[in-house]
């Protein structure tokens, strides 16, 4: 009983703040007042008609997509190379691939601010895509390498022994089995870029402002109530994304 009570308290602690943003988005107040004095959808209207919010939102999608593509192009072959071959220096390669995850984001932000600044790439799509792409490599690599490790090579051997060449085997046997893992890896890469705030603060700007950066500035400067709308929309997307697979499974997770 005790663990359940404690867990419930902790769970409440986790979820209550997130739920608070929903009524806030319908509030009429200018400042951060809770409970809201009255409700309307005015700020929703403001969000969907204001370029200053829609542009960063679109930018974030474009940049996250680009970063995801960049990361996957690098990580998929790398995962194959790492998991399926033996060679000296594996530990070093592992460390290298994991390094963006170990280095604190604020340090990477500083480094990229200087590096991309010199290359005149700050405030451009390319600059942010490169930075975000690199930062997403460890996460995507972990997922795909894990999927590869669990891959039953007998499937490939069976296909090859039936006469399929290496490319056809890869295309018709390996890839379809790996697809779920690759999708998860790609999703993680996309979300890691979409949510990334610190590096974006330093290097995004001008035409390539991202949504987190806009939200950060909004909190610091404007106390703009539209941020509640953005937060609610983001939370809504997450809830959908998490609940849909659970509902579709229609059965609870198994105990240990």
């Amino acid at each position: 009983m005790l663990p359940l009570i404690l867990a419930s308290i902790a769970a409440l602690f986790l979820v209550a703040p997130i739920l608070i943003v929903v009524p806030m988005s319908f509030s009429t107040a200018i400042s951060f007042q809770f409970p809201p004095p009255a409700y309307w959808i005015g700020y929703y209207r403001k969000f969907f008609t204001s370029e200053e919010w829609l542009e960063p939102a679109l930018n974030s999608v474009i940049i996250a997509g680009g970063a995801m593509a960049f990361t996957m192009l690098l990580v998929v072959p790398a995962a194959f190379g790492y998991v399926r071959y033996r060679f000296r220096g594996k530990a070093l390669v592992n460390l290298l691939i994991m390094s963006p995850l170990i280095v604190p984001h604020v340090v990477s932000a500083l480094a990229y601010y200087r590096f991309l600044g010199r290359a005149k790439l700050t405030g451009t799509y390319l600059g942010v895509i490169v930075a975000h792409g690199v930062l997403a490599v460890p996460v995507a690599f972990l997922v795909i390498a894990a999927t590869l490790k669990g891959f039953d090579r007998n499937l490939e051997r069976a296909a090859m022994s039936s006469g399929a060449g290496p490319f056809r085997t890869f295309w018709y046997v390996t890839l379809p089995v790996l697809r779920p893992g690759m999708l998860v890896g790609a999703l993680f890469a996309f979300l890691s870029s979409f949510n990334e705030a610190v590096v974006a603060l330093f290097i995004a700007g001008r035409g390539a402002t991202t949504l987190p950066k806009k939200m950060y500035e909004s909190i610091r400067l404007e106390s703009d109530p539209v941020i509640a709308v953005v937060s609610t929309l983001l939370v809504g997307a997450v809830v959908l994304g998490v609940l849909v697979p659970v509902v579709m499974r229609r059965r609870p997770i198994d105990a240990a």
Partner: protein
Amino acid sequence: MSVTRRNTAAWLLLGPSTAVLVLLFVVPIGYVLVLSVTDPRLALAHYQRIFTVPLYTRVLVNTFLTSLVVTALCLVLGYPVAYVMARRGGWVGTVLLTIVAMTFWTGFLVRTYAWLVILGSKGPVVSAYQALGLGPAPQLLFTTFSSTLGMTHILLPYMILALYAVMKKIDANHLKAAASLGARPAAAFREVFLPLSLPGVVNGSLLVFVSCLGFFVTPVLLGAPRDMMISQLINQQIEELLAWGFASAVAVVLLAATALVVGVYNRFAGLDRLWG
């Protein structure tokens, strides 16, 4: 296939990523290191400043202590959740997992904003204070308290997931065996489950502690300017003072601290353990 041919294939596959990571990650970070000792001139002066000027040593100590507190809080709050998720399963487990996943994927900024509302002067906590007749509420926002609370909230899912990953692998039969030998549930937990869950505790604590050291967004938006953490210091030095050399030095100190903690962990547990 010959060994050389295998190796060539491996390097071809790994080549692009390695090259990109070296050129587009290691090099920029390396440049920060170089900056810390060359700007404005070749000297270790910045490092000297960090470790001797009380203002800056306070930042280091404060960051370290806050990270410890947040890690402890996450452990205390997260252990029961992971335990119930792993042991109970069923609908309760699913609900908890859903909550954790939801929190995990909601960005830092949304959650930080939520705390600004909750702890604000017009928020529910202050209203509760007034409703209970406890007099004027103390200032909750822009204090170390709000910063710590915010960070705990944001890092808690990481702790829970790390604990869960290990707990879920603990064989229920161990506990059944203990029970069959006459152990009461509390004793069984203490003697059997707890020790087996320790790798998860270490994993989770490492993850949370290291994340906390370099945490930026939440301390900046929720914290007190007086009780700066390292990342705030870096930001201030760059944004307000353009002190590249000094900011780089502070960044290097942060990186070194992080690398040290991770290195120690690697020595005793191996980094790949972290990924379960």
